Each structure stands twice: as C-alpha cells, then as structure tokens.
C-alpha cells in the first residue's frame, strides 16, 4: 500500500491503520485486505464482483469497514455488496470510495449496496466519497443503495461528498415496514464543472414507520446539482424531507420534491430552500472581524460540518 492509497483510506474511511473488527479493502477491483469473524462475516460472491456481509443476530457495538479505492486511470469498477443484518444486531458500517486519478481517462466506481435489515436490527451506515489527483480524467461515482427494512429496524445513513468528484449519480431506494425508522443525512459540495445528482425514493409501508431526509449542499463555480426525492406514504407514517442548498458563483441547484400520501394517516412534509449566502450572515461575521472571504468559508464549513 503506497502513500496515495493510505491518504485515500484515511479520508474516505477514517482509516489510519488496520481497522478493528471485520473489513474488506478493495483496490482497483480486487480485495487487497480482509478480516472476517463469526460476528460479522464477509464472503466473496461467486457469480459476480462483490461480497456478502452477514451481521449475526444480536451482535452489538461492532463495526465493519469496506472502503474502495481506485487509483488506476480509466478503471471502471462495478461491485455488488449485500448486507444481511440479522435481528437485534446493532453495528456501524463504514463504506466509501476514493478515486485518485492522475491520468486523462475517466475512472469510475459503481457500488451497488443492498441492505436487508431484519426485525429490530439497527445500523449506522457512513459513506464518504472523494476524488483526488490532478489528471484531466473524470472521477465518477455512481452509488446505488437499496434498503429493505423489517419491523422495528433502524437505519441511519450518512453520505458525504466533499469535493473532487467530477460526476456522481446517487440512487437510494428504501422500503420500510412497521415501526421502521430511516434517517438519511446527505452533504454535498461541488466545484468547477462538477455534476452531482441524488435521487431518493422511500416507501413507508408499515404503520408507525418514519423517514427523515436532510440534505445540505453547496454548489460553487459552474457546478450543477440535482436533488430528486420521492416519499410515498402507504400507512400511518411520518416523512420529512429538508433540502437546503447554497449556490455561489455560476452554480445551479435544482430540487424536485415529490410526496405521495396513499393513506389518510400519512403525514409527509417537504421543505426546500436554495439560495446564495444571506447578506446578513456575511455582515454579522464581518462585524466580528472576518473578511468577506473568511466569512463565506466559515458559513460553508459550518453548513457542511
């Protein structure tokens, strides 16, 4: 593992040494490190690229790290990861992908993740995306996440994309059973001519299920972002989507909300606010001594903290 690999791993998965517990490190399409135990078992797929991850019944306070790095310019990676979280388990899953491209060909990672959460299973899923390297080739990430949630299960998903990714198209689909709870927090920063698209579709199918989506984005330069969310309430349920965007320079942000209630007891809310940094915020920080540029940076940093 060279210094570029180490840097990518540190940034996308907070890994500074060999992680505790189970892990799988994928580099340019191959597994370059793995640990698996009886609590969290990792098994390679036989029919296609990818792994199956089994988190056994009632396993608690454990974590699994599954970082992916792509350092070969022009490489196109496609991987299927399936997670089976058995009942009563409560674990942290850290995934994420870093692309380092110093060449002129487009490097791509397509990660297809499916989560099966059994009754009362609980996960926190953290996914960071990053592009590094000053080649002219694209750094493209297209993550697909499917979440199937049984009764009483809880999923907290945090996705972060803070720069360097030239194009991303993120699709997240979830189906929630009775009393299931899904929280999605998304943070995206795009600059230059980057493009980022995110699409959420959440179906609330069981009584007492709930979803909360909080998306905060900053678009700079000539970058473009599109946020599409669809929440379907087909039970006595609660859904809340909050999409906040700061637009600077010549950037563009589009938010397309859709909420569909198929049940009189479904309560669904969508809030979207997109605009430039409020002048009063800049003035307040300048009155505390910051220059306009410093004030802008502070506001953005806090916003995406």
């Amino acid at each position: 593992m060279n210094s570029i690999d180490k840097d990518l791993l540190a940034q996308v998965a907070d890994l500074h040494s060999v992680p505790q517990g189970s892990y799988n490190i994928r580099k340019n399409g191959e597994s370059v490190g793995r640990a698996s135990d009886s609590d969290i078992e990792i098994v390679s797929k036989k029919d296609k690229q990818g792994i199956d991850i089994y988190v056994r019944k009632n396993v608690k306070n454990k974590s699994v790290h599954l970082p992916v790095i792509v350092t070969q310019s022009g490489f196109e990676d496609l991987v299927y990861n399936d997670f089976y979280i058995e009942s009563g388990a409560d674990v942290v899953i850290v995934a994420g992908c870093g692309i380092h491209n110093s060449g002129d060909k487009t490097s791509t990672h397509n990660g297809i993740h499916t989560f099966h959460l059994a009754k009362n299973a609980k996960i926190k899923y953290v996914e960071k995306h990053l592009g590094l390297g000053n080649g002219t080739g694209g750094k493209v990430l297209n993550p697909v996440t499917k979440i199937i949630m049984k009764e009483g299960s809880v999923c907290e998903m945090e996705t972060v994309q803070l720069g360097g990714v030239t194009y991303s198209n993120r699709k997240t689909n979830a189906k929630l059973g009775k009393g299931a709870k899904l929280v999605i927090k998304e943070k995206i920063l795009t600059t230059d001519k980057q493009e980022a698209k995110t699409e959420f579709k959440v179906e609330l199918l069981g009584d007492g299920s709930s979803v909360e989506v909080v998306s905060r984005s900053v678009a700079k330069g000539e970058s473009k972002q599109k946020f599409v969310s669809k929440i379907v309430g087909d039970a006595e349920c609660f859904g809340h989507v909050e999409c906040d965007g700061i637009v600077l320079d010549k950037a563009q942000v589009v938010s397309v909300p859709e909420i569909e209630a198929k049940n009189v007891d479904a309560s669904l809310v969508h809030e979207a606010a997109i605009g430039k940094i409020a002048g009063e915020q800049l003035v307040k920080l300048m009155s505390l001594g910051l220059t306009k540029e410093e004030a802008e940076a502070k506001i953005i940093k806090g916003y995406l903290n």
Partner: protein
Amino acid sequence: MFQLKNVDYVVTDEKTGAKKEILKNLNLSFDKGKITVVTGHNGSGKSTLIKLLMGIEKPTNGQILFDDKDITDLAVNEMANLGISIAFQQPVRFKGLTVKDLLDIANERSTNISDACDFLSLVGLCAREYLDRELDNTLSGGEIKRIELALALAKGGEVFLFDEPEAGIDLWSFDDLIGIFKKLKDKTIIIVSHQKKILEIADKVLLMSNQGYQMGERDEILGNMSPSKCARLEVRDE
C-alpha cells in the same frame, strides 16, 4: 471620538427610481466614556444610523470620522478591527454554526482573553447549555438576542452599538442589562432604546423623528418633554 459630518442617507427604489431621504444632514459626535441613547418613532432611522456607524450602509453624502480619521469608506470588518462592535436589532441565524463557533470568532479578534463562557453568563445564559447549540431557529427570540449581546461583548472594542438590546429580553432582570452597559463606562456606548430605565443611564440622548433630530444632554432633551410627547415616543416604563 466618533463623528458624523453632514451625513445624508438616501435610498433609490430600483424599480421606480424614486428617491427616499432617510437621514438628512446629520452632524453628531459621540464621546468616549459617554452613553448616548438613541430614541424616536419606528421608522425614524435609528437602525439605519447604527448601520452607517458600523459601515454596513454607506452615506450618500458626508463623512464618518473616528478619532479624526476618515473611515467613511471602510469595510465592515475594517470597522470591526478598529474596535467598533455591534449587536443587531434582529440577530441573524446560522444553520450549522454553534454559539461556541461564533464566540470563538468574536474572541479571536479581541484583546479580551476571558473565557467565552463568561460572556454567556454575563447575559444570563448558562454556558453549558448553550455553547453547542446551533444558532438556528431552534433558539427563541430572547435567547438569540442575549447571544447577540454576548458576541458583541466577547469581541470587545472601543465603540459599542446596541440596537434595541432589551427587545425580547423579558425574563432576565433589566438590572443585569443595565449593569453590562455600566461596566463599559470608559467606552463609547450608543444604544437604541425606548426603555425608561435605559434612558435613565444616558449621558446624552439623540431624539430622532421624520422631521429631523435633536441631540443633547439627557435632561435637556427629555426633561422638558411633555408627558403626551413621551407617550407618543412610546417610552416604556417597565
């Protein structure tokens, strides 16, 4: 000494091009070690004056001087670095920045090395409860006003501009607020207020109206005002 010389402030409506004169020919000076209370009807230009003094709005005519130096064209942060501090009438909210973040920014630029927490207790807030709170709309109007005051104090300086500091602060005793102003007695203090208790600590009063302004010693300005005029000014006694 903080001075305005022949200051006009005129705004132009972008659509109609119509001009509106908000402040006309202001000649004022604010002395070090004195509290000036600015009072007058809603819309008489008090907040506009405060914003001119902070460099947020620029006079369409005239000059602003600080210790005889022309500072009319300085940016807000340059004014801040000269030692001018402000607590706004309507504090702005921030998503993602905490009370501590803002106190750190304020404190960093000041010579005041006292702990950020002290400033919160000065305004009657318990630091432990508030430091990590985001300055977003989960804070009540009264809370955000107190934090705004704490920020101005944490930043410190030579000139303090307080725009209706008492608004929304009802639970907290007025005497504590007055205490804060008295503590700053060697500074230049300019407070916009209608409160009788605040007017009582004024050395000078600036009375603003749409017709013009009057500035002088407190008793000179308020002493000979008829009760009905006081009432019209909404001088509140609570």
